[in-house]
């Protein structure tokens, strides 16, 4: 009879007594061993056994009854010590049978007894937590929202939830029954982080065991997510602690035990399975799967496995982390395919050199962002230089070119302020386009709101309660807000500076508390002429104030872009001479005054409204005052716009506003790379007309003449608006871009069965004949949609007519008959199927206009409540809210990016 051991019950009762083992053997004595990991049965690992992970009754073996089953159970205390520390959902056991102590032994194969899992009701899908936040997805090296717009996530790490026990004092000393409130994570604080500091993401470290075992903790997570989402911020749940007991060695920096585990464990899979299921319908939740993988410290006695050869970034260790990433990704995406994952680098999260993580078939993991943690000073990083930072972000293997990268935690003490400033600049340089290509950065979360290195000041206080001294950490307030630390001052300044701004106006030379400056630059103020004020974060309602001799005059801009205010014609009531100019935002933020001199006199012929990329041939949009026009009947005369410079300037302002500052964001991501120039010159003798009036109230642009005009003016443009004035013929029209020759083709595309290539250069610009003023605020961007497209490489047509398509029209298709069904898929472009805008249920199609008896149809709208921008946007209650459909926006952006790349 061989030795056999089994348990009387098939599973462990988490709240019950130790298991009863049933032993049968033909030997007379038996040792029973129980362990949290089967490797501990290996005698070579005996040194790693503790009362918390291994039990053996070798000191008093069980006497085995001959021919009968023998029952044995552990001491309750011994069992509890092991059970509480298990890292798997159960325990391992085996038997060693013998007759005499020194004689031969028979060992059974280790067996596993799982913990019973109660049949539970489905996890309540937390409802309504996400507010109006959109789903985010990783596409290439960007993170996009549902509308296809690139998103930059910037915010702070708000720790506390991973270590704050319930029934402890909050920062005001009041004992709170929940971890969240005891940590001080209140709605008021959430509002400060999101509204006052302008964070749109908060990284929240969490505790694995508490998530798995405490319902109240899950409710805390729900409340945290809801608080931030109510203020427009995403919550990044970051696994930072496995429980509140284990330490993983001594941190050499602090000399204190660290609770930062080196790797995940099996319960980590259960954690993410649970959270992915719970938040399956919540776009507000982002998944930072494991805080800071690292080689276990020499003093880490919890780590049971043999340490691999090599160092932090060597394959034996890196491959272990990659394997965990693959397993966790499978678990999360099995529950929620839309979940956006954040994966830390090795070496305490820093190093992304050996990434991305690949699936077994070699494909990259879907919907995954790679995150580096950078704390200064950092011996592994070395000096904070672009080259070194490129290194840790995986530039050597082109990681940022193919995958999104993020800084999940960055910070340091005040002594590192200069280097942190440099780090912020580096990160800022990553989350933007350069030459038409995204640089791979998708943002950061600065560390930390509540723990070292602090972003806001904290103190400690104590009180005697019930005869005991109780201490708690406080937040230091400056008025109604938290007092930033020196590093916090840099971070809040960065957050309040829009992502596309090239730099943060942070002046370290100034005293603390005054280092964030809000400065603007101003063009020469000339009466009757265009005034430009450049800066950043010009919000709705921002105005200009000009002060002369103590008298302040308010000047409202004609166009307000996030980084530019344009006054189309400086009032002649503004006194000449010395003055100061300030910009005032509705929230009270006022720029530092700029000394100016108001002048009079002739305006220059040409002005750069937006400078564009600093290179020889940036993508350029030109507004030119039409010198001459062909009237109906053929007469060629000077265009009346030549006598109406003010109206020309106003039309240009309207054009700027429509292109860069309405809800349709087609050009917004590229605003700092596009040159916009306005040119007003009188007609030279014999100059060809650039526009011609047509019966029906239309005016056509003459593309050949405009091309020649621009060449003569040495003004290469990709799209050109010829601005004219004739109210009876004010309907604008546009002609398509003629792309450059084959030598300048950019990447190819496939559109259904059509294969084409976007071109980097323009042979003839797309042209628009636009009235001064345009009939509507959206006329300039509607016509831009036409002009930016190409009749040969995909024309963008009007959607408000049931015309037959001429050539390759990318945004309009035709059914065989008016009763033919609408296909589900409008077109496949770039490997993505774009649905059709179909009538369904109460929805009639075309944003509410309906298809009537039409053959034509378009692609699915981003916003079905109003017409497509290329449709009759005049039928919308507020035409400025009209959008392109996603396919057209993607197609036109691909064309724009190709030209930005030249």
């Amino acid at each position, binding site marked *: 009879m061989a030795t056999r051991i089994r348990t009387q019950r098939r599973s462990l009762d988490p709240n019950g007594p130790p298991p009863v083992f049933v032993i049968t053997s033909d030997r007379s004595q038996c040792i029973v061993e129980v362990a949290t990991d089967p490797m501990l049965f290996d005698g070579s690992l005996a040194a790693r056994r503790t009362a918390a992970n291994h039990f053996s009754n070798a000191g008093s073996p069980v006497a085995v009854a001959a021919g009968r089953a023998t029952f044995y159970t552990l001491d309750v205390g011994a069992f509890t010590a092991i059970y509480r520390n298990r890292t798997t959902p159960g325990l391992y056991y085996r038997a060693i049978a013998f007759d005499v102590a020194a004689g031969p032994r028979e060992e059974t194969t280790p067996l596993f007894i799982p913990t019973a899992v109660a049949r539970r009701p489905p996890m309540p899908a937390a409802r309504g937590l996400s507010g109006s936040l959109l789903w985010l997805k990783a596409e290439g090296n960007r993170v996009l929202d549902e509308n296809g717009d690139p998103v930059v996530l910037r915010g702070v790490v708000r720790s506390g939830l991973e270590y704050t026990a319930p029934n402890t004092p909050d920062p005001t000393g009041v004992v709170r029954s929940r971890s969240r409130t005891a940590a001080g994570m209140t709605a008021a604080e959430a509002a400060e982080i999101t509204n006052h500091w302008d964070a749109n993401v908060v990284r929240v470290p969490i505790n694995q065991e508490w998530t798995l075992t405490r319902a109240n903790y899950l409710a805390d997570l729900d409340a945290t997510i809801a608080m931030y989402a109510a203020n427009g911020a995403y919550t990044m749940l970051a696994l930072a602690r496995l429980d509140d007991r284990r330490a993983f060695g001594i941190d050499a920096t602090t000399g204190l035990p660290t609770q930062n585990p080196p790797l995940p464990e099996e319960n980590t899979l259960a954690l993410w399975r649970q959270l992915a299921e719970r938040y399956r319908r919540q776009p507000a939740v982002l998944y930072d799967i494991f805080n800071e993988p690292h080689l276990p410290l020499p003093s880490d006695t919890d780590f049971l496995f043999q340490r691999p050869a090599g160092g932090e970034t060597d394959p034996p260790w890196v491959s272990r982390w990659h394997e965990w990433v693959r397993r966790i990704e499978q678990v999360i995406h099995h529950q929620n395919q839309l979940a956006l994952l954040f994966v830390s680098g090795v070496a305490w999260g820093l190093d992304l050199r050996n990434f991305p993580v690949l699936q077994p078939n070699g494909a990259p993991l879907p919907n995954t962002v790679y995150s580096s943690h950078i704390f200064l000073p950092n011996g592994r990083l070395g000096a904070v230089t672009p080259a070194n930072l490129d290194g840790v972000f995986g530039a050597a293997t082109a990681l940022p070119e193919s995958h999104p990268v993020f800084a999940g935690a960055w910070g340091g003490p005040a002594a590192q302020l200069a280097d942190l400033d440099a780090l912020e600049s580096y990160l800022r340089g990553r989350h933007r386009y350069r030459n038409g290509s995204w640089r791979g950065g998708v943002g950061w979360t600065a560390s930390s709101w509540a723990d070292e290195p602090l972003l806001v000041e904290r103190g400690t206080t104590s009180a005697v309660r019930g005869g005991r001294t109780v201490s708690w950490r406080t937040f230091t307030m400056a008025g109604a807000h938290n007092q930033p630390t020196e590093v916090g001052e840099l971070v809040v300044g960065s957050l309040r500076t829009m992502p596309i701004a090239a730099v943060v106006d942070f002046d370290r030379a100034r005293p603390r508390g005054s280092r964030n400056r809000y400065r603007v630059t101003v063009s020469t103020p000339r009466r009757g002429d265009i005034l430009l004020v450049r800066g950043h974060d010009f919000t709705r309602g921002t105005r200009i104030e000009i002060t002369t001799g103590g008298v302040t005059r308010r000047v409202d801009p004609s166009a307000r872009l996030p980084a530019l205010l344009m006054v189309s014609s400086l009032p002649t009531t503004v006194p000449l001479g010395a003055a100061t100019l300030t910009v005032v935002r509705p929230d009270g933020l006022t720029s530092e005054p700029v000394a100016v001199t108001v002048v009079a006199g002739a305006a220059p012929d040409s002005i750069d409204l937006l400078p564009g990329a600093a290179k020889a041939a940036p993508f350029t949009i030109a507004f030119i005052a039409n010198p001459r026009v062909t009237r109906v009947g053929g007469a060629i005369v000077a265009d009346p716009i030549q006598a109406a410079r003010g109206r020309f300037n106003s039309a240009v302002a309207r054009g700027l*506003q429509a292109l860069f500052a309405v809800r349709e964001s087609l050009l917004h991501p590229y605003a700092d790379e596009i040159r916009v120039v306005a040119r007003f010159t009188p007609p030279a003798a014999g100059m060809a007309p650039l526009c011609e009036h047509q019966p029906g109230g239309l005016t*056509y642009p003459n593309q050949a003449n405009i091309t020649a005009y621009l060449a003569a003016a040495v003004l290469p443009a990709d799209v050109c608006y010829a601005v004219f004035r004739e109210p009876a013929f004010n309907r604008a029209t546009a002609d398509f871009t003629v792309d450059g020759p084959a030598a300048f083709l950019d990447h190819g595309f496939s559109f259904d069965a059509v294969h084409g290539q976007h071109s980097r250069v323009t042979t003839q610009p797309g042209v628009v004949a636009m009235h001064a003023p345009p*009939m509507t*605020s959206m006329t300039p961007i509607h016509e831009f949609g036409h002009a930016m497209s190409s009749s040969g490489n995909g024309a963008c047509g*009007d959607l408000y*007519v049931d015309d037959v398509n001429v050539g390759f029209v990318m945004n309009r298709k035709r059914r065989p008959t008016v009763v033919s069904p609408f296909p589900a898929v409008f077109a496949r472009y770039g490997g993505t199927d774009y649905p059709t805008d179909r009538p369904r249920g109460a929805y009639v199609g075309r944003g509410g206009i309906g298809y009537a008896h039409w053959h034509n149809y378009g692609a699915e709208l981003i916003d079905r409540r109003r017409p497509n921008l290329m449709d009759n946007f005049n039928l919308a209650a507020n035409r400025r809210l009209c959008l392109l459909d996603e396919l057209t926006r993607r197609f036109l952006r691909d064309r724009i990016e190709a030209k930005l790349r030249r």
Partner: protein
Amino acid sequence: MIEPLSPEQRAEILARNAGATEADLDALETLLHERWGLATAPPEFWGDVEFADARRRAALAELDEQIQVRRDARFPELEAALEAVLLRYEDDPEPPE
């Protein structure tokens, strides 16, 4: 290619052109779009290079004539209507957001 007519423009056009109907205006719009669509068609649309320009000019001329006839017959005050609507608003533009 062509800026869409607003409801106000359509109303003004019909008000100033007695006897013209919505269907008449739609038909004129269709012609205008057809004309501009042909004018902006890619060169290969017109077939072999040798006769492309001639074909293009002929097609446009035919449409120009149709447009003129329809405009003269039904919408002699069309341009005046467009002017009237523009002048109503041009000095009171929508403020920037």
